[in-house]
């Protein structure tokens, strides 16, 4: 009897399974957004590096590029403060002033030689940048270059998590130099549509130290 029941039970299970599976399951609606190509106008002002690292976390460069020409340094600086006060951007007051000065020179009516631009553009001291013989403090580098705004250890934020990066490069003999290059020169297209800005303030030792740290995760 048992031998004859088995196929019947099997058939019953098949029927139930068929009934509870929706007959025509609509596929998820998916889109792929175009790659991001807009870039901030280059400048030697320290605010340029800060703007690249901070502003582009939340929005593409064209949010800035297509503003009206001829805005003043005061107007641009107020706009940067608005990003800090209203939209939670994570920079200091001094950094905000430096970004405002750069934006006013690149997009507005200020000149790099204006006294107000010069005074707002005092470079931030980079504690570990002066002496390459000093022991590089990786944690300090992470903090002072805004890395943690886009990357967490174990979850995706704007960019991939450090663990995802380490996993992808596992076993790659050139992983460290590849990563150091991406950190120093920026990178795009490897992890999605949002580009990683160039960390131009870093020297090669610092970039290598950061790359090693990432690969250990």
């Amino acid at each position, binding site marked *: 009897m048992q031998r004859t029941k088995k196929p019947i039970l099997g058939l019953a299970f098949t029927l139930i399974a068929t009934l509870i599976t*929706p007959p025509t*399951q*609509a596929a*998820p*609606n*998916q*889109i*792929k*957004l*175009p*790659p*991001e*190509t*807009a870039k901030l*106008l280059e400048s030697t002002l320290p605010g340029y590096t800060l703007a690249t690292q901070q502003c582009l*976390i*939340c*929005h*593409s460069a*064209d*949010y*800035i*590029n*297509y*503003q*009206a*020409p*001829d*805005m003043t340094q005061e*107007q641009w600086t107020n*706009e940067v403060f608005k990003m800090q006060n*209203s*939209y*939670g*951007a*994570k920079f200091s007051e001094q950094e905000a002033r430096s970004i405002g000065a750069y934006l006013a020179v690149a*997009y*507005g009516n200020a000149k790099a030689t204006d006294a107000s631009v010069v005074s707002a553009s005092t470079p931030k001291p980079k504690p570990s940048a002066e002496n390459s013989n000093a022991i590089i403090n990786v944690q300090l580098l992470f903090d002072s270059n805004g890395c943690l*705004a886009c990357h967490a250890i174990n979850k995706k*934020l*704007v960019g991939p998590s450090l663990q995802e990066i380490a996993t992808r490069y596992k076993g790659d003999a050139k992983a460290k130099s590849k990563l150091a290059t991406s950190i120093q020169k920026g990178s795009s297209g490897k992890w999605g*549509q*949002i580009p990683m800005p160039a960390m131009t303030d870093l020297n090669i030792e610092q970039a290598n130290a950061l790359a090693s740290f990432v690969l250990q995760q």
Partner: protein
Amino acid sequence: MTDKYNKVHTSRRQFLRNAGALALAASPLNAIAANDTSEGITFADGPRPLVRYPGKRELILVHTRPPHLETPSSVFNEGVITPNDAFFVRYHLANFPTSIDPETYRLTVKGAVKTPLSLSLAELKSSMQQVEVVAVNQCSGNSRGYSSPRVFGAQLGNGAMGNARWVGVPLKTLLEKAGILSGARQVTFNGLDKPVIPSTPDFRKALDIEHALSPEPIVAWSMNGEDLPFLNGYPLKLIVPGYFGTYWVKHLSEIEVIDHLYEGHDAHFMTKAYRVPDNDCMCVAPGTKADKTRPISTLPVRSFITSVKANDVLPVNRTVKLRGIAFDDGSGIKTVDVSMDSGQTWRSATLGNDLGRFSFREWQLAISFKNKGSAVLLVRASNRQGEIQPLKADWNPSGYRRHAIESTPITIA
């Protein structure tokens, strides 16, 4: 969907740069004029390119991330309904899903209600009475680029507006199904879009309870007979006829009834942004700040000529049929007038089919010019509340709700 949507076109500036090397005799100027994405506004970085995003034809790029695209003005002359693939796109927060599963999607109704709801799309579409409305969705900052003096924000031409046929269920029906508790003051709306970093406020909006319980707002899934385009809020969007687009929450997922006025970190887009001066004109002296503000609300009356572009050449002593659109907050368009002499005299246009009081209203007028030379066409609408477009634009610090009479310079030859 596929890579074919991801082609970014050469910008006009790039084209100009390339063309600069050629002799001017090649005359690239006609090609430029036909593809003008600046529409009369100057930008720090030159004119903007046309781009293709998923589900969209070539639209004017305002911003790449989060996406912000404008409808080219020629689309508004194609018909009174704006096609889905040409409808403008505007996000505030870059962290939104690019894959949405209609099988698992849920709309929740919670807060000060007797029975919180969690509805699948199938339940929403099958269990309640469906309604349809043709309504204009216009961005609060539409035409901001024409503010004088200029203001920060998306530097929009006139393409952040569109008119579509929306099908869904009345918000009122949903709220009544959940059962509103006494003491309810406002209803808040949240979609799937999220801030990139947690310190940025979420994008959430609120309507007063009386407005939420009026017959007008609907929760829609259909736009012009199709599912909502992904970038216009698939699969559900709040439609608030007569109100600016800021209230038309995309990817709508949470409705919450509250017993107080909406406040706090995530109320930013009600309490700090999308506000206008709290006075009759919702304006201040150019370049000054407002002492007191209130949330932006309904659409002022506006009108456009769609059949003639700036700097077009029209024939002398020949009949020219002008065509255009007018719209308001749902009071209803009363008149559309055209002036050919800088506003000294006005001629009444004939209004076209009425698709409902929240829709674009077509208008037509046959004119002919007696003299050659340059001329300016003005178009002015009024509504049944007695509101009429002003000749001179007023000003507010955010460049919202521009509604002055539009002027179109032309040449008669």
